[in-house]
């Protein structure tokens, strides 16, 4: 870029927005760095894993306009692969285990994507659900997943063979790093040349076709990215809890990630983070209270209220308010 280039008002605005965004990131990272001294690290790690999962899902729903009802399959595939690798090969370092789990999810995502991407709307959701159920039954039956009991005692190991992750605090910082990397990938994807085309496809698919774009290929890339990042979340979660179980593969999980994303604000970068934080907090808090059996009912109620009264989710509504009042 040449230094003499004059800035249009829009570029100036973009530049300001970028500055504000970067400041926000710095503040959030600072909060995340001190958080484990205030809150229980395992809880925070759970939030981060689900937040990454929801962010991955949001990339697909919010930015490509595709509603997948089978994202649990990628979370679980990442989790199981990492679990199996780390349990079977004691020499394997956790970051490599996570990488393998993520790659497994990418491969599965490519396969699912090729089969599902030609379908639109509800049919796309149905195909992804069907394929995810297939994976669920595979994980029950397969001899190496521990069936209904799941995989227990996955070793956390030593990061790069140097830093022991058995301590929750070091584990937390590792999970935070994974989250930041995943989030950065999503943020860059959204603000890339590819992201522009994706946005155009979401806005008006036939027009994007008439401009010469092969929309199915663009959607497939979004699907694979989303699947891979969901796998990354699942892999990391397995290392944290030293456990890979069927809960992750169940269709409830696919539903939960939709809930988190919609609650927080679909199509906003921070929405899924807020949604995941809220849902995980509620689950944890309620499980300890006398209302423990009512978790699903209460979450369902919150979801209904959210859909009826603030459709763009928490972050979406806040953004609207800010835009209206501080223009």
């Amino acid at each position, binding site marked *: *870029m040449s230094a003499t280039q004059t800035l*249009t*008002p*829009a*570029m100036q*605005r973009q530049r300001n927005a970028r500055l504000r965004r970067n400041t926000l990131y710095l503040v959030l990272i600072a909060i995340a760095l001190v958080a484990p001294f205030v809150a229980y690290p395992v809880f925070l790690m759970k939030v981060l894993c689900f937040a990454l999962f929801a962010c991955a899902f949001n990339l697909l729903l919010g930015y490509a306009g595709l509603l997948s009802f089978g994202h649990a399959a990628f979370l679980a595939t990442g989790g199981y692969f990492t679990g199996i690798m780390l349990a079977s090969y004691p020499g394997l370092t956790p970051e490599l285990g996570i990488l393998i789990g993520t790659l497994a999810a990418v491969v599965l995502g490519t396969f699912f994507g090729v089969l599902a991407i030609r379908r639109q709307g509800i049919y796309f959701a149905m195909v992804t659900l069907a394929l995810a159920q297939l994976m669920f039954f595979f994980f029950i039956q397969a001899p190496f997943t521990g069936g209904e009991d799941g995989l227990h005692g996955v070793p956390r190991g030593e990061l790069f063979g140097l830093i022991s992750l058995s301590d929750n605090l070091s584990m937390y910082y590792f999970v935070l790093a994974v989250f930041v990397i995943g989030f950065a990938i999503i943020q*860059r*994807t959204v*603000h*890339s*040349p*590819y*992201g*522009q*085309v994706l*946005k*155009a496809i979401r*806005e*008006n698919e*036939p*027009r*994007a*076709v*008439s*401009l*010469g*774009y*092969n*929309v199915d*290929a*663009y959607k497939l*890339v979004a699907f694979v*990215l989303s699947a891979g990042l969901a796998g990354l979340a699942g892999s990391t979660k397995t290392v944290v809890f030293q456990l890979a179980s069927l809960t992750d593969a169940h269709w409830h999980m696919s539903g939960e990630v939709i809930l988190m994303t919609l609650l927080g604000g679909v199509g906003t970068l921070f929405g899924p983070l807020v949604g995941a934080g809220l849902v995980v907090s509620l689950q944890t808090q309620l499980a300890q209270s006398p209302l423990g059996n009512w978790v699903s009912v209460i979450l369902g109620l919150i979801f209904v209220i959210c859909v009826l009264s603030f459709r763009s989710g928490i972050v979406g509504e806040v953004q609207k308010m800010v835009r209206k009042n501080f223009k």
Partner: protein
Amino acid sequence: MTQEFILETRGLTKEFRGFTAVDDVNLQVRDGHIHALIGPNGAGKTTVFNLLTKFLPPTRGEILYRGKPITSMKANEIARLGLVRSFQISAVFAHMTAMENVRVALQRKLGTSFHFWKSEKSLDHLNDRALELLEEVGLREYADVLTVEMPYGRKRALEVATTLALEPTLMLLDEPTQGMGAEDVDRIVELIRRVSKGRTVLMVEHNLSVVSRLCDRITVLARGSVLAEGDYQEVSRNPLVREAYMGSDAAEEEEASA
């Protein structure tokens, strides 16, 4: 091979479950012409249009572009050959600014459109060209406006700018003046006249005054077949056309006012 025709169809037919929407249409569009496809409601204009732009597969028949068959190509592939279509309802990307709309069309040629790891700043060097195109359709001052906030007539103009970004050799316009007030119609007619220099335009159009002002050649469709072809004078004198399309009264009025 007849190179004077940029677009040609041979025996183009489309059947929907036994109903023949387009029946053995032989259409020839001359290079450099503004060619109109007219006809009463249900004549199959939009179906023909969708067949030509590959949004529908034909049941039978061939489509030739510069003498080469494009019948089995995909909709996005013909766009790369230079056949770019517009839509009946203004096809813009509503939550992008006018400049971003044009830029999305421009960026395809960069070949970085799958690069999800690159910054969108890498597209900034296209801004000048995008502004030029907006200038050309009189939308320079709308560059930073979100398209959803633009008036209807301006959206159609933006659509033209986006189409021009692809440097099409053949523009296919689906009812470009539909739903517009008189002032906007005049503006679009002027715009089409201006941008058609050095290009070929094939348009489906209801508004006969637009057709008479703009088009070199007219094909009249009725019930899925070609009823007549010629320039405006020839076609409007044709009794078959009067009967099928305008109704004899309307035809007389048209003549009286001309």
